[in-house]
């Protein structure tokens, strides 16, 4: 079942997107995500899809919205500087409830930073990069297999919840080459768009009074508008306070109310873990190595890996905070997700970061040192 391959994370994302049914890519290549563009430009035409190299990332995001509103599963890939440019139109996709997938292969920033070096500096930008209250789904892969499998999940979530999904990778995983099984179609569960079946005259694409409204596509008999301004159930401009209140609450609740269904986590040696490493993405690989070394030394270390970063996987995070003696959060930033961990620290246990921002990966020895210090307390 499936096809065994040795490939790069970025290439596997392209294969995952295609397996999920994506047939449109618009983007502007940027290190360390360029291989997604490169392989998409080759692979999409082979499956009847379309690849467009855009003038910039603002245009890329606009093209994604147009393609998705026209019924195609659409994706793009960028890095931090490009995500900044996409942030404006990302808001349009949030407001218009247009499914699409944005890959961010994080590199060291701010600005051009260290263009070829890894970082995890966009964790909060992914959550709050576009302005205004909203919720969003962010997934973080830690292997080439994840790059394939989770891309399918990303598209599924995006259709299921009518939302942009950010696929928050990093240079470590994007450029890592390792084995992957490209799963065959029969192994995959694919969520297709929930298209309306009502009388076209009755179609209200933003009426979420009975579950999430179905989404049609441009060119169908179901006429609908995508409006970045406050709009009523039909998509017509509407500035009524009660309507604005309804929309903003809906944009958050349609995701937050399903946080546990969206949550993907992995637990390693958590049954008896005293020192818990809470981690994600490329840093999870360092954490797992450190955990293994700590166990060899007889320290009860465990790993809670967060694959879904946003919405926060509350249940597993709270459970870990309930039982741990101390928590270590390794991140390739100055401490972005550790804030979420600290917010849930009801028992006031030690929570410490292991941070690296010099363009180098976190070495397992650095995490091991923190584990040993906490274990000795």
């Amino acid at each position, binding site marked *: 079942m499936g096809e065994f391959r*040795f490939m790069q994370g970025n290439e596997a994302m392209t294969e995952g997107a295609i397996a999920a049914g994506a047939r449109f890519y618009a983007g502007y290549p940027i290190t360390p995500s360029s291989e997604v563009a490169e392989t998409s430009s080759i692979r999409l035409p082979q499956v009847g899809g379309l690849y467009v190299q855009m003038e910039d990332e603002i245009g890329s995001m606009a093209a994604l919205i147009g393609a998705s509103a026209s019924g195609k599963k659409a994706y793009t890939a960028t890095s931090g500087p490009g995500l900044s440019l996409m942030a404006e139109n990302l808001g349009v996709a949030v407001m218009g409830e247009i499914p699409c997938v944005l890959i961010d292969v994080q590199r060291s920033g701010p600005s051009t930073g260290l263009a070829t070096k890894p970082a995890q500096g966009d964790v909060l930008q992914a959550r709050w990069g576009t302005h205004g209250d909203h919720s969003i789904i962010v997934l973080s892969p830690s292997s080439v297999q994840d790059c394939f499998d989770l891309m399918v999940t990303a598209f599924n979530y995006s259709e299921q919840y009518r939302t942009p999904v950010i696929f928050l990778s990093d240079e470590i995983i994007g450029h*890592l*080459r390792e*084995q992957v099984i490209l799963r065959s179609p029969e192994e995959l569960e694919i969520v297709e768009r929930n298209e309306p079946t009502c009388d076209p005259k009755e179609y209200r694409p933003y009426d979420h009074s009975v579950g999430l409204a179905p989404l049609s596509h441009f060119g169908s008999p179901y006429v609908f508008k995508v409006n970045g301004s406050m709009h009523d159930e039909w998509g017509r401009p509407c500035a009524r306070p009660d309507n604005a209140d309804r929309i903003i609450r809906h944009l958050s609740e349609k995701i937050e109310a399903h946080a546990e269904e969206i949550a993907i986590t992995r637990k390693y040696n958590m049954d008896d873990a005293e020192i818990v490493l809470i981690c994600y993405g490329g840093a999870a690989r360092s954490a797992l190595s450190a955990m293994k070394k700590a166990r060899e030394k007889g320290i009860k270390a465990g790993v809670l890996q967060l694959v879904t970063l946003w919405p926060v996987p509350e249940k597993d995070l709270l459970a870990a905070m309930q039982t741990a003696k101390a928590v270590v959060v390794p991140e390739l930033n100055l401490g972005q997700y550790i804030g979420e961990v600290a917010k849930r620290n009801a028992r006031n246990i030690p929570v410490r970061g292991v941070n690296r921002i010099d363009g180098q990966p976190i070495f397992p020895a650095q995490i091991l040192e923190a584990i040993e210090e906490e274990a000795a307390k």
Partner: protein
Amino acid sequence: MKTQKEITISGVGGQGMILCGTLIAEAAAVHEHKRATLSSEYGVETRGTFAKSDVIVSDEEIFFPDVTEPDLVVCLHPAAYARYAGKIGDALLLYNSDEVTPDESAAGPQKGLAITHMAKELGNPQTANILTMGAIAALTQVVTPEGAKEAIRKFFKGKSDKVIALNEKAFDLGYEKGIELREER
């Protein structure tokens, strides 16, 4: 017994080290059915600044994909040699003797191979990375020559038979020289 082998292939951008490492790791994963990873580091410049690729081959799942306990470090350029010479414990350092003037006082075992010269003799200096691949295969035994050449043929698929044959020849020469170095140790 250590079931994991770690190899760093270093030099400057443009020397084909990432391809060299990729083909070794791919051969190990696809043809030898081992776990293998390839990670790389390079600068924003296309050519001329420090770059490396790290290959890990293991019987078990590999977590951290960068080399921390090397078995072999290959240095194709003085900039890379300066970074590793005397700093890699008991690991073997293999340097390109056409580019690198070794520091005889540096701690740890080191061996030179005239990689550039041999690649030129074969008819194309660009085969240096495949020649290096042969030497690595011989010194570490992480891949068999058959598996490695299968990966080479797959990579050069679509190129002329002449190109494929030349690269296979480069691998064989590197492998032969690697075996000689191994016996010297």
